């Protein structure tokens, strides 16, 4: 909110959100030590009595100073509740600065002093009838921000009146007041819904964003209210302010999911034409379009408009569905990252697969923003790329790690690279990975090695190379790297154990040099699992492990016990004594997990050479073949959260999350969206024809404007889509 280099000396009128303790939305930098105005955060604040007398004085200047000091104190958290009566008296002041400061104070303290606050209500009610629209709007804003339940009916009345106000600014404020009233008194929901319905019919862009926000807060499930306003909202989308755009897109995504058929149902059928066409010419156009993939749907659109889509075989996209996708597209060029993200998730959830490609470039562009934006965008890309990797492959280089990236960004980028790596790019990527391994960031280096493992799993032609590369890492000087490599190698070896006998051998030799517990445990497990392949190594490894048993960490101990059990079954002669030794140590271990380990406790029973019922199955229990682990992206399971939502970012359901519904099997009747007064729709149809065809001067503008050549301050409510007064484009 701060304008570049601007240091405001006064407090702005910012009613705070509910329940917040002090108006923290201050652009009052403490360093506003200008000569004229006293420093607001000065340590020597006046006493309350002095302030009261200043507030009672007849000079506006004194009152202003007093109010500024009071608000400064409130911002710092000092209690000023006993000044309430003195402050409230000034609510009738004519000076707008004093008024605004009083409003801020009121909003903060009204809840605590409800009776006294009621004194000021009449001023607001008077303000609501003021000819100046700014005053009307401010009065409404304060009225709705005061959280005193008694005045709820007054608020309701005020909102109802303001909804029919001439000034769009007042209507916008009314739209903002609705969720505030709803949170104060949820019983009023039905009446508020009626108000929202009335506001939804409003034609101005200013109001549209706010009313959708109110709709989402109060009654998000009332999709039926949107029907008549759907086309209008789609067409207004580009002209609404940025934050309104975000709200509208989110709402329309949910709407689209309940109203339109799944555009991807034809994926299964081969070569199903995207639109129902009856002429070859259009089919050619169609295939061209699908090849270009990107923004080439304008021509197809044009043709489609001229013909009525006939309901033949195959899937026809509802023209309203198409309208939504088309109108959202220009928003990808917005400078606001939230808008771009909103459009991306709209396309992800609602658009046919082959049109999704246009999202990629803008998403990559968002990666140049702040670190926080990057983190969110990357986590969303990770989810998308787990599903559609081919789309991101040309942009692989944008995900390379910069040395200035913080660790969480690095991990995300690494995940995406591993997802997106394809056969053509894999060698460059492996080279990159090799550089990353030597990074001083330990967590990152470990993650790189895991990424190598993942890539080796998914791209079969490099599995060998990766494996050999990882083996060479085993002699790396960093302990950490070696340990991580061992873990990953273990996972890879499970894929093709027989072919990699010698590798298992090599790994087993490392058993004594590796000290990181996870790695050592992995080695022991590996040897135990494939003891048939490396018969000579097994007992020796066990011997070394048993020597040091008491000093090892818990997972190592567990694995040693497992190893002992498995070896005894396959090689009893050499290992029986060792096994007994290890098991007796385990029986008296401090950790109950090890003591109770079924292998160690039952072992006494069925491995002592007696033929009990269990011993027949001992081999099957311990040496059963296990499926190889599948190395997957950490983001694969986030796919069921809606992209771009808070729940997605934290990977668990946040309060207020509404899951996207599935597409309906049969799309409901589209005629509910027809509005009786089709002149609106007619105009827009004309507009579209202009846009496509003419490079002529009469092409409508990107944004609507008020009729008349001058933009004046008075309440003007022009018809949208009228061209700029007089100006002609050449």
């Amino acid at each position, binding site marked *: 909110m701060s*304008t*570049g280099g601007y*240091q*405001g*000396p*006064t407090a*702005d*009128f*910012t*009613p705070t*959100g*509910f329940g917040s303790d002090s108006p923290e*939305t201050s652009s009052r930098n403490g360093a506003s030590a*200008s000569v004229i105005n006293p420093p607001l955060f000065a340590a020597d604040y006046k006493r309350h009595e002095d302030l009261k007398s200043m507030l009672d004085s007849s*000079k506006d*200047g004194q009152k202003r100073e007093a109010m500024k000091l009071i608000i400064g104190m409130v911002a710092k958290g000092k209690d000023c509740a006993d000044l309430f009566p003195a402050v409230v008296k000034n609510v009738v002041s004519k*000076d*707008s*600065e004093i008024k605004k400061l009083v409003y801020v104070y009121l909003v903060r303290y009204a809840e605590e002093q409800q009776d006294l606050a009621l004194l000021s209500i009449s001023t607001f009610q008077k303000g609501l009838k003021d000819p*100046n629209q*700014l005053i009307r*709007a401010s009065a409404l*804003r304060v009225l709705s*921000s005061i959280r005193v339940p008694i005045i709820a009916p007054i608020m309701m009345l005020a909102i109802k009146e303001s909804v029919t106000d001439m*000034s769009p*600014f007042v209507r916008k404020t009314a739209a*903002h007041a609705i*969720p505030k009233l709803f949170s104060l008194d949820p019983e009023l929901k039905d009446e508020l819904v009626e108000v929202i319905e009335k506001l939804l019919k409003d034609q101005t*862009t*200013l109001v549209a964003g706010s009313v959708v*926000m109110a709709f989402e807060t109060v009654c998000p499930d009332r999709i039926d209210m949107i029907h008549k306003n759907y086309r209008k909202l789609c067409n207004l989308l580009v002209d609404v302010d940025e*934050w309104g755009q975000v709200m509208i897109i989110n709402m329309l995504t949910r709407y689209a999911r309940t109203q339109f058929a799944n555009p991807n149902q034809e994926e299964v059928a081969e070569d199903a034409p995207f639109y129902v066409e009856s002429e070859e010419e259009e089919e050619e156009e169609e295939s061209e379009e699908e090849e270009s993939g990107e923004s080439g749907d304008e021509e197809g659109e044009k043709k489609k408009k001229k013909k009525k889509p006939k309901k033949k075989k195959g899937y026809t996209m509802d023209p309203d569905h198409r309208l939504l996708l088309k109108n959202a597209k*220009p928003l990808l*060029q*917005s*400078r606001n990252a939230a808008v771009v993200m909103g459009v991306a998730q709209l396309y992800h959830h609602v658009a046919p697969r082959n049109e999704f490609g246009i999202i990629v470039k*803008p998403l*990559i562009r968002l990666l*140049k923003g702040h670190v926080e934006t990057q983190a969110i965008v990357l986590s969303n890309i990770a989810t998308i790329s787990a599903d559609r990797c081919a789309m991101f492959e040309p942009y692989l*280089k944008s995900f390379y790690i*910069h040395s200035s990236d913080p660790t969480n960004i690095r991990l995300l980028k690494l995940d995406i690279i591993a997802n997106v790596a394809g056969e053509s790019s894999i060698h460059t990527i492996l080279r*990159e990975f090799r550089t990353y391994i*030597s990074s*001083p960031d330990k967590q990152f280096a470990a993650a790189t090695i895991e990424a190598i493992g993942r890539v080796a799993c998914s791209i079969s032609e490099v599995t060998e190379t990766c494996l050999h590369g990882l083996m060479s890492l085993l002699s790396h*000087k960093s302990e950490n790297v070696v340990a991580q490599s061992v873990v990953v190698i273990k996972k890879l070896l499970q894929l093709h154990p027989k072919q990699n006998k010698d590798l298992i051998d090599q790994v087993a030799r490392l058993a004594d040099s590796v000290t990181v517990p996870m790695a050592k445990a992995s080695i022991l497990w590996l040897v135990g699992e494939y003891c048939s392949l490396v018969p000579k190594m097994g007992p020796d490894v066990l011997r070394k492990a048993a020597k040091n048993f008491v000093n090892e960490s818990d997972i190592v101990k567990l694995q040693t016990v497992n190893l002992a059990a498995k070896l005894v079954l396959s090689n009893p002669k050499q290992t029986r004594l060792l096994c007994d030794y290890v098991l007796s140590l385990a029986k008296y271990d401090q950790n109950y997990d090890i003591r109770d380990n079924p292998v160690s406790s039952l072992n006494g029973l069925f491995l002592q050479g007696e033929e009990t019922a269990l011993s027949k199955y001992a081999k099957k229990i311990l040496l059963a073949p296990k499926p190889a682990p599948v190395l997957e992206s950490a983001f694969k399971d986030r796919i069921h959260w809606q992209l771009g939502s808070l729940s997605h970012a934290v990977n668990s359901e946040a309060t207020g999350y509404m899951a996207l519904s599935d597409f309906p099997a049969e799309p409901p009747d589209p005629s509910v969206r027809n509005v009786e007064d089709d002149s609106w729709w007619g105009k827009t149809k004309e507009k579209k024809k202009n846009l496509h065809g003419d490079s002529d001067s009469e*092409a*409508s*503008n990107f*944004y*609507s*404007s*008020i009729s008349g050549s001058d*933009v*004046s*301050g008075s309440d*003007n409510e*022009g018809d949208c889509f009228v061209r*700029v007064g007089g*100006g002609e*484009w050449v």
Partner: protein
Amino acid sequence: MLDNGYPLATESNVLKELIKPPSLVRSVVHTITGESKLANVSSTLPTGQLSNVPWRRTGVKYANNEIFLDLIEELDVIIDKSGTTIVAEVQGKIQANSRLSGMPDLTLSFMNPRLLDDVSFHPCVRYKRWESERVLSFIPPDGPFRLLSYQISSQSNVALPLYVTPQFSFSGGSGKFEVKVGPKQTMGKVVEDVKLVVPMPSCVTNVNPTSTYGMPSYDPVSRTVTWNIGKLQTQKYMSMNGSVTMTSGEAPESNPTIMVEFKISQLAVSGLKVSRLDIYGEKFKPFKE
């Protein structure tokens, strides 16, 4: 400004109208008369809030009508040990400062608009015209603003204006390093504000850098060596040498990465050039400077 957590007015023009920035005249008048007619807080709704051109307020008047356009580009490059460029990305933005009266309607065209394929605009830009004619048509907000930002991931190699050759050797508890910097293809322009930042690994305790040109320094808190070179000289040989002491016995795992910053004015790496700027809707005649 926020209302109930929802942004209400964020355009700087609107905010400036609502709360007039302090100026000398205003403060003088304020002290002389107790109450100020030119109040800090406006009592009428800013024209921007209502109109469909919300980013520009009406009634703007300037004596000299001027608009300045700055093309600023940033190069993000990753170079490996042997000096080959792995990734090169150009991010650019056009910052404008408009001091034009009334409601001018500007049209900006480029020599080579096809370079710009991934762009994000200020809301004032008319998107449809850009799509069809690759021409930027807009009514500018008053004052400084960012018109657009773009990104060019160059498939062809971007010519880097300087080269850096590092050499690090660590052994036992001490090490040496040498970093050489020199200009490469600069297209005749001077490379200014050159600064190299080398974050040292965590086992380093002290560094003593010296150099033939420029001012190197070591900051023990952040453990970085900073070498301020200023203008890059073509004739002089610029290198920084230094000795490194480390906590005993530990050798760093890898050589540190070097971050190089520099600035070149009057040069757009991507080759983007503005060809013309037209003004409609107002009666003053523009001339280019």
